[in-house]
C-alpha cells in the first residue's frame, strides 16, 4: 500500500489546484530565507480556484542551527514560522467579509517538537504555543481551517499542528498514518499491562489506543479518508461545511469544542460532557456569591 | 645444630619486586598512568593478598581498573582483603580470574554479584567482617602484600594528602608498609606543596596521578523533602522515649531517614523536650547535612567522622570547634578511630533495619545479596570491654532484670542499641518476620554463618509506629518476644500479640505506646522539621553547605 509519510510537498500537489502552490509567500509576508525553519513548508495555493494558506511539514529538511530538528520535527523556528504564516493569513483578509476569509489547510506529518537542550533553555513550549494561539485566533476570525493527516500526527506535535483546526481529516491507517501520544508498545511498558490485554481493552475503549480509527471514535478526527485521490475533494467539502457553519454562527460545532461533542456522539468520550455539566451546574448553584456587589462573606 | 634461617624474606621479596618495577618509577616515586598496568604486573604475584582502598567516599578506582587489565597469566588467584567492593571492577576481577578469594566488610551495589559469584564458584569467600574486625586482621593474619590506595594529592616527593576523606588510608598503609609490603597510591593531582602531610612518602612506593579524580558519592546526604510523617512519628518516639528518658549524650546515627528526621527535629521537638546540652553533645558520624540545624543551634560539642561528605567541606572547615580539623583547616576523618569510638565510647547506636525476627535479631540481608554491614555491628552491640560509665549507659544496665543472673550483685551498664522500623516497608513488606532472609542467603550463597547485623541480645529498644519495646527491661526471652510482638503491628508476628499480655507489658513500662509516652501522633508532621528541603539546609549553613548537583533543585 502506498504512503505519503515524509511527502508533505507531494501532498500539497495532490490536494491543491495544479501548480498553484507558491511556497514562502502568504499575503504580504514572504519567507525568503531557505534556512529559516526549513521543516515547515508555508505558502499560498489555490483550492478549487480560491486562495488558501497551506502549512505542511518537510521531512527531508534538516535545520542546521538546531540539530534535533529533522524528519518533520517542529522546532522553534518551525513553530514560529507556522505562526507567522497564520498571522499573515489573518492580515491578508483583515478587511474581507467572513465568507471570503481564506481557508487554511494543515498538512500533517510530524513526529514531534524539538526535544533539545537549547530548545528548553529558550522555551520550545512558547513556539508551539504561539502557533496554536495563532490558529485559534484565525479560526475565531472566520478562517476555515482543515487539517489533513497524511503521515505522523504524534502527541504534542499534533496538538500544535492539527488539533486547533476546525475539522480534522486523516488518511486511513492503511497508508501508514499514525495518530497517537505514544505507540501502544510504549504505553504497555509504562502502564505495565501486556499488549494483548491492552489491544482487547481498546476494542471497547479507544481512549489509549493508537491510530486514526480510534481517534475518530473519540471525535478527535472528523472523517477518515480511505483513498489518496479522495483527499482533495474531501478537504474542499469540509472547507465548505466549515465556512457554512461559521456563517451560521455555529462556531461551537467546530474546533476542539466541536470535536468534544462529536466524541460523545460517537460514544468515545462520554464522561467529558457529564463532567462539564457537573462543573457548570455546581458553579451555577453558587455564582450569585461571586457577582459584583455580592456581600463579601468571611470564613465558611 | 641450629638451622640457618633468613629473617628478612618479606623484605627481600619486596625488594625483588620493586627492582622489577624500577623502570616504571621515576623521580618522587612518580609513575605515569600508562605504566600502571606494567607496574602492577611487576609487583603483584599470583595468590598475593591485595587491598584496593575503597569505602564510602573514596575509591582507588583508577588502580582497580588497571588491575583489571593485567596479564592473567602473570597475575591471578589474588586474595582481596579490603573494606568494600562497591565498584563493578572489584567484582570483574573475580569474573576474570585475576582474583579468587575475598575478605571484606561491605558489598554495596555489587552485593548481588558477590552472592552470584560465590554460588558459581568464581569467588571464594573468606568472611564478611565488620570494619574494625577486618582492620584487626590486617595486623594479624590478613596483612596485604600490596595495597592500592587513594589520596587527593601528592607532592613531588611522594608525600600524600588524604584530606577531607582520609577514611581507611592510615590503617591500610600502616599494616602493609610495616610488614614490608608495597603501597601504590593514586592521587587526583601532584602538587608542589601539600596542605598537610597525612602519609609520609617513606611509606609509599609509587604514586600515579590518575587521569580523572576518584569517584565519590554523597552517600550520607538525605533530602529532608523525602521525610514522611511516619518517620517523624518514630523520631518523636525516639526523642521522648529514649533520648530524653536516658539522657543520651553520645551516639552514632545510622544513615536512614529516621535518624535524619531526628537530627532535623533536635532544634524543634528536641528543644521542646529541653534536651539541648543533655543529648547529642558528642557524636560519631560523617558530616550529615541534616545535622546542620542542630549544630548551628549549639547542640553539638564534638563530631568525629569516619569519612567526609561531598558538599560539606566548607561548612565543616568553618566549624572547627565541632569537627576534627587539621592545621591546614580541613577535616581529618579516620574510620579506624571513629569505629573505635563508635564501638567502645558512645552510649547509643540508633539505626534502621530491614527485618527483625521474633527474638529481636535483625538484618538488612536479603536472600540474594551478600552486602555485609560495615561498621553497624560494632556500634550496634554492647561492648563488653567498656569500663567508663555515663548516665545513659548505667541506667540501661540497671534496667536489665537478667543482669543478676550474669554477674550477681555487681553494677554494670549497657550500650543502648536502638532499631527503628515501620512495621511494613515498601510494597507492604513486613519488617517483622518469622525467619530472617539472612538464613536463606546463607543457604543460597553457602555461607557458614547467616549474616545477622545485630543480634537480639544486643538490641535494647525497638521503635515502630505502634510504640517502643524496651527490651532492656525484659528479664526473659519470653518477655522479650512478647514485647516485640506488641510493637509489630499488623504483621503476622504482631497479630500473635495478646491484648492482655500487651496491657501487662505497658503497665510494666516494657512497652510504651505513643499515648503512654505522651507523644501526640497528630503532631507528627513535617512542620516539626527544622529544615524541609536541601535549600533550607543551605540557608541554615549560611551558604557554606554546597549540595551536590543531583540534590539541588535550583
Amino acid at each position: 500500500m502506498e504512503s505519503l509519510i515524509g511527502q508533505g510537498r507531494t501532498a500539497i500537489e495532490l490536494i491543491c489546484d495544479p501548480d498553484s502552490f507558491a511556497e514562502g509567500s502568504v499575503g504580504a509576508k514572504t519567507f525568503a530565507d531557505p534556512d529559516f525553519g526549513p521543516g515547515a513548508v508555508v505558502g499560498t495555493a489555490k483550492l478549487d480556484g480560491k486562495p488558501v494558506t497551506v502549512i505542511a511539514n518537510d521531512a527531508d529538511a534538516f535545520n542546521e542551527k538546531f540539530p534535533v530538528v529533522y524528519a518533520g520535527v517542529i522546532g522553534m523556528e518551525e513553530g514560529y514560522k507556522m505562526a507567522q504564516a497564520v498571522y499573515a493569513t489573518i492580515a491578508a483578509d483583515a478587511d474581507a467579509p467572513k465568507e471570503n476569509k481564506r481557508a487554511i489547510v494543515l498538512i500533517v506529518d510530524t513526529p514531534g517538537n524539538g526535544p533539545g537542550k537549547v530548545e528548553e533553555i529558550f522555551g520550545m513550549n512558547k513556539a508551539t504555543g504561539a502557533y496554536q494561539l495563532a490558529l485559534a485566533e484565525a479560526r475565531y476570525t472566520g478562517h476555515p481551517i482543515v487539517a489533513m493527516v497524511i503521515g505522523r500526527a504524534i502527541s504534542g506535535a499534533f496538538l500544535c499542528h492539527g488539533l486547533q483546526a476546525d475539522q480534522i481529516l486523516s488518511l486511513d491507517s492503511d497508508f501508514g498514518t499514525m495518530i497517537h501520544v505514544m505507540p501502544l508498545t510504549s504505553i504497555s511498558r509504562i502502564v505495565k499491562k501486556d499488549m494483548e490485554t491492552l489491544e482487547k481493552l481498546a476494542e471497547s475503549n479507544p481512549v489509549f489506543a493508537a491510530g486514526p480509527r480510534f481517534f475518530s471514535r473519540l471525535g478527535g478526527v472528523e472523517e477518515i479518508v480511505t483513498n489518496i485521490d479522495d483527499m482533495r475533494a474531501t478537504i474542499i467539502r469540509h472547507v465548505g461545511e466549515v465556512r457554512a457553519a461559521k456563517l451560521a454562527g455555529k462556531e461551537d460545532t467546530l474546533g476542539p469544542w466541536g470535536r468534544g461533542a462529536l466524541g460523545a456522539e460517537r460514544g468515545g468520550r462520554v464522561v467529558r460532557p457529564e463532567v462539564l455539566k457537573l462543573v457548570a451546574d455546581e458553579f451555577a448553584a453558587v455564582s450569585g456569591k461571586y457577582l459584583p456587589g455580592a456581600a463579601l462573606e468571611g470564613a465558611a | 645444630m641450629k638451622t640457618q634461617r633468613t629473617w628478612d624474606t618479606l623484605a627481600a621479596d619486596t625488594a625483588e619486586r620493586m627492582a622489577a618495577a624500577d623502570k616504571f618509577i621515576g623521580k618522587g616515586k612518580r609513575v605515569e598512568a600508562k605504566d600502571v598496568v606494567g607496574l602492577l604486573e611487576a609487583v603483584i604475584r599470583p595468590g598475593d593478598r591485595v587491598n584496593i582502598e575503597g569505602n564510602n567516599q573514596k575509591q582507588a578506582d583508577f588502580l582497580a581498573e588497571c588491575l583489571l587489565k593485567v596479564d592473567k597469566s602473570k597475575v591471578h588467584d589474588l586474595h582481596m582483603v579490603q573494606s568494600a567492593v562497591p565498584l563493578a571492577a572489584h567484582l570483574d576481577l573475580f569474573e576474570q580470574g585475576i582474583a579468587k578469594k575475598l575478605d571484606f566488610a561491605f558489598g554495596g551495589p555489587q552485593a548481588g554479584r558477590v552472592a552470584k559469584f560465590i554460588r558459581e564458584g568464581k569467588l571464594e569467600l573468606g568472611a564478611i567482617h565488620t570494619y574494625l574486625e577486618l582492620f584487626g586482621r590486617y595486623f594479624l593474619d590478613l596483612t596485604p602484600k600490596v595495597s592500592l590506595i587513594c589520596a587527593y594529592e601528592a607532592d613531588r616527593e611522594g608525600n600524600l594528602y588524604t584530606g577531607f576523606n582520609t577514611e581507611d588510608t592510615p590503617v591500610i598503609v600502616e599494616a602493609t608498609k610495616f610488614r614490608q609490603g608495597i603501597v601504590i597510591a593514586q592521587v587526583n593531582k601532584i602538587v608542589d606543596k601539600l596542605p598537610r602531610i597525612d602519609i609520609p612518602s617513606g611509606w609509599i612506593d609509587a604514586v600515579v596521578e590518575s587521569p580523572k579524580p576518584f569517584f565519590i558519592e554523597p552517600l550520607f546526604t538525605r533530602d529532608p523533602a523525602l521525610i514522611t510523617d511516619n518517620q517523624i512519628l518514630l523520631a518523636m518516639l525516639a526523642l521522648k522515649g529514649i533520648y530524653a528518658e536516658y539522657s543520651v549524650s553520645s551516639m552514632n546515627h545510622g544513615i536512614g531517614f529516621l535518624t535524619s528526621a531526628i537530627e532535623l527535629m533536635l532544634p524543634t521537638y528536641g528543644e521542646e523536650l529541653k534536651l539541648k546540652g543533655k543529648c547529642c553533645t558528642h557524636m560519631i558520624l560523617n558530616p550529615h547535612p541534616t545535622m546542620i540545624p542542630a549544630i548551628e543551634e549549639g547542640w553539638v560539642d564534638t563530631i568525629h567522622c569516619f569519612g567526609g561528605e561531598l558538599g560539606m567541606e566548607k561548612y565543616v572547615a568553618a566549624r572547627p570547634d565541632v569537627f576534627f580539623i587539621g592545621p591546614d583547616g580541613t577535616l581529618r576523618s579516620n574510620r579506624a578511630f571513629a569505629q573505635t569510638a563508635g564501638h567502645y565510647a558512645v552510649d547509643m547506636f540508633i539505626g534502621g533495619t530491614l527485618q527483625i525476627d521474633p527474638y529481636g535479631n535483625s538484618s538488612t540481608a536479603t536472600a540474594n545479596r551478600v552486602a555485609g554491614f560495615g561498621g553497624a555491628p560494632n556500634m550496634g552491640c554492647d561492648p563488653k570491654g567498656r569500663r567508663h560509665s555515663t548516665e545513659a549507659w548505667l541506667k540501661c544496665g540497671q534496667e536489665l532484670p537478667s543482669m543478676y543472673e550474669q554477674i550477681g550483685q555487681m553494677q554494670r551498664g549497657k550500650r543502648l542499641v536502638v532499631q527503628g522500623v515501620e512495621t511494613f516497608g515498601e510494597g507492604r513488606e513486613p519488617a517483622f518476620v518469622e525467619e530472617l532472609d539472612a538464613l536463606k542467603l546463607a543457604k543460597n550463597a553457602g555461607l557458614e554463618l547467616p549474616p545477622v547485623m545485630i543480634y537480639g541480645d544486643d538490641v535494647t529498644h525497638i521503635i515502630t509506629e505502634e510504640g517502643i519495646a524496651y527490651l532492656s527491661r525484659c528479664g526473659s526471652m519470653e518477655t522479650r518476644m512478647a514485647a516485640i510482638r506488641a510493637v509489630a503491628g499488623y504483621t503476622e508476628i504482631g497479630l500473635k500479640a495478646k491484648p492482655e499480655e500487651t496491657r501487662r507489658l505497658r503497665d510494666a513500662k516494657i512497652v510504651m505506646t505513643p499515648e503512654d509516652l505522651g507523644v501526640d501522633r497528630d503532631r507528627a508532621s513535617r512542620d516539626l522539621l527544622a529544615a524541609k528541603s536541601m535549600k533550607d539546609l543551605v540557608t541554615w549553613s549560611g551558604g557554606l553547605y554546597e549540595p551536590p548537583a543531583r540534590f539541588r533543585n535550583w
Partner: protein
Amino acid sequence: MSKWSTLLSRSFLESNARERAVGLVDEGTFTEFAGPFDRRTSPHLEVLGEAVEFDDGIVTGVGRIGKTPVFVISQEGRFIGGAVGEVGGAKMVGTIKAAIDFADRIAKDFPNAADEEKPIVAISFETGGVRLHEANAGLLAHAEVMDQFQRARGKVPVISLIGSKVGCFGGMGFVAAATDVVVMSEFGRLGLTGPEVIEQEMGKDEFDSADRALVYRTTGGRHKYVMGDCNFLVEDTVAGFRAQLSELAKLPRSEFEALRRIGSEKLVEKQLEGVALAAELQPKDARDVWVHAGNPDPVSLAMAPVPQFRETVKRLAL
C-alpha cells in the same frame, strides 16, 4: 487540611493541590467544582486496574480575592504525576469556560462593573502533560484548553502559577506558555520536553537527567525569569503566590495583553529574535545565556536569595 491562616506560610512546593487552591483565595471563599464528594474518578484508570482519585488529580473551583472572582485550577502531582485525563481535562476546560461565561454574564448584567469585579483564572500547574492511561482523551483535552484560552483573550485573564515538584511539561508546557501571565517560584519548572527524553535524545554527556541542578537551571524559575518566560518570580510560599495573584487581580484588564510572551504577530517576531540568539550563541548551558544577558557571575546569582536575585539580575533583553 490546616487552617487557612497556617496554609499561607506553607511552602507552595510542599503543599498539595487543594491546599494551594484554598490558600490562593480569600479565607472561606473557595467553592470546589466536581470535588471529591462528587466521586468522579476516571473510568479509564479503573479498567486498567490503576489507583483512582475522587478528584482525578485536579482541584477546580472558584473563590475570591477581594472583589475579584478567581477561578482556580490546581493540579496534583502526587497523583500519577498530575497527568491530564478525560475527567481532569474536562474539569479544567469546564472551569475556564465557566469563567468566560461568567464574564459575559457580568458584562451583560453589570455593565458598570469595575475590572476588579470581573473574573480571572489561576492555574497551578503540576503535570507532565497527557496521562498515558487515557492518552487520546488527555491530548484532546489539551486542545480544548488552548481553545478556551483564545476565547478568554481580552476578557478573562489567565494566570499560570508554577511552583510544584513535578513542574509543568509536555503539552501543558505550551498551555502554560499561552496564558497571559506566568508566575513561578525558583522551584517551579516550565518546559516542553522532560529531562529524561532530552537525555535519551542527546546522550548523557550532553544532558544528564539525574543532575537536578542542571535540570533546574535549564527550566527552573530563575532561568525562566531571566528569559522572560516567567513574568514574576515569587518566594516559595502559598502567601507568595497569593500576593502576586492579588496584585494581578487588581490590574486593569487591558493591561494583561502587555504581559504576554506569545499570542500576536509582534510577539512572535520578538521571540524569533530569541531564537536567532539561540542559534548564534549555541549555549551549552543556560548560564551562557545569563552571561549574555549581562550577568557575569551566574553561579553566585543562582545561589542568591530570591529578593536579592530579583533586584540584581539582568533579564534577557530582546
